[in-house]
């Protein structure tokens, strides 16, 4: 397997900071893309009109509609204010994952530091919004439905909540690392033709993992802010 990264060519980027450099490069690209999308949207009347053909504007319309529909389905009406955050999380993870398919790039999501940070972001977010929505009554979520079972449920719930950011991070990192390991092994075994299948698989896994991360974040938020307990 090749241990070379294009980002290592940047002066000052050693072997340990490859994922940071990749993350910064991808984020810079994403910010530029977002500005391009904002410019393409236009002002006033033009902004409301849907795009006639597939362009940057059309892409963002389709993308935001999909995320907004998913949020409506999972979180419900009060999820509207979270749509930009979900869209940003999905886009960041997705583009970072896809960057790993370029030859000579290791994605930032291949590193536990990045993915656990994303998982912790999700963890703090849903707890914050849980407290914001319910006040201190949010703590009742940890006690389960029956008061008699509360001591038992507290332990179970605490463990399940603490494991959430870890499992989010481990899942993303494990999938990305596993995918690239399989691709690397097949590139060594059969250098021509066959790895194309694994590039397609990689595209599927990248999209699926970004989707799963966003979906789980949505579900955690909807569980934290729901009122039917």
């Amino acid at each position, binding site marked *: 397997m090749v241990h070379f990264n294009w980002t290592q060519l940047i002066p000052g980027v050693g072997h340990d900071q490859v994922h940071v450099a990749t993350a910064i490069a991808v984020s810079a690209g994403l910010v530029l893309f977002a500005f391009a999308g904002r410019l393409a949207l236009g002002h006033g009347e033009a902004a409301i009109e849907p795009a006639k053909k597939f362009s940057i504007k059309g892409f963002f319309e389709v993308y935001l509609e999909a995320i907004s529909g998913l949020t409506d389905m999972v979180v419900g009406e009060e999820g509207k204010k979270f749509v930009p955050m979900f869209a940003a999380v999905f886009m960041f993870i997705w583009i970072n994952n896809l960057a790993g398919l370029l030859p000579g790039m290791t994605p930032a999501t291949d590193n536990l530091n990045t993915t656990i940070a994303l998982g912790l972001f999700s963890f703090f977010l849903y707890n914050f919004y849980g407290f914001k929505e319910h006040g201190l009554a949010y703590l009742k979520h940890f006690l389960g439905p029956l008061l008699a079972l509360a001591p038992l449920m507290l332990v179970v719930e605490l463990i399940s909540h603490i494991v959430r950011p870890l499992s989010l991070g*481990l*899942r993303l990192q494990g999938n990305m690392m596993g995918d690239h390991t399989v691709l690397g092994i097949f590139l060594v075994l059969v250098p021509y033709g066959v790895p194309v299948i694994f590039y397609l698989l990689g595209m599927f896994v990248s999209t699926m993992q970004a989707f799963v991360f966003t979906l*789980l974040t949505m*579900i955690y938020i909807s569980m934290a802010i729901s009122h039917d307990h």
Partner: protein
Amino acid sequence: MMTRLLLTVATIMATVPAFAEDGSGSSGWGPLAAGLAIGIAAFGGSLGQGKIGASAMEGIARNPQARGDMFIPMILGLVFVESLVIYAFAIAFLVK
């Protein structure tokens, strides 16, 4: 059949000390443990995921209109099964 199985096990056990003499410092069981970990995890995980997929197919066949509502719970079930396999994969990498 039984003798062949025993013979295989004996052969594996006999070859393990040969690995250990590489001077790598570990006991030499690592590759076997890693292979078993991911193998057993993939076995159980694929059985579970197959069950989820089969039930989803059955549900869609019975009620094609419910496809959209079934999609997210199905993905969630698949994800929770898969994450356990991924843990085993991480463990396999740790002990390798």
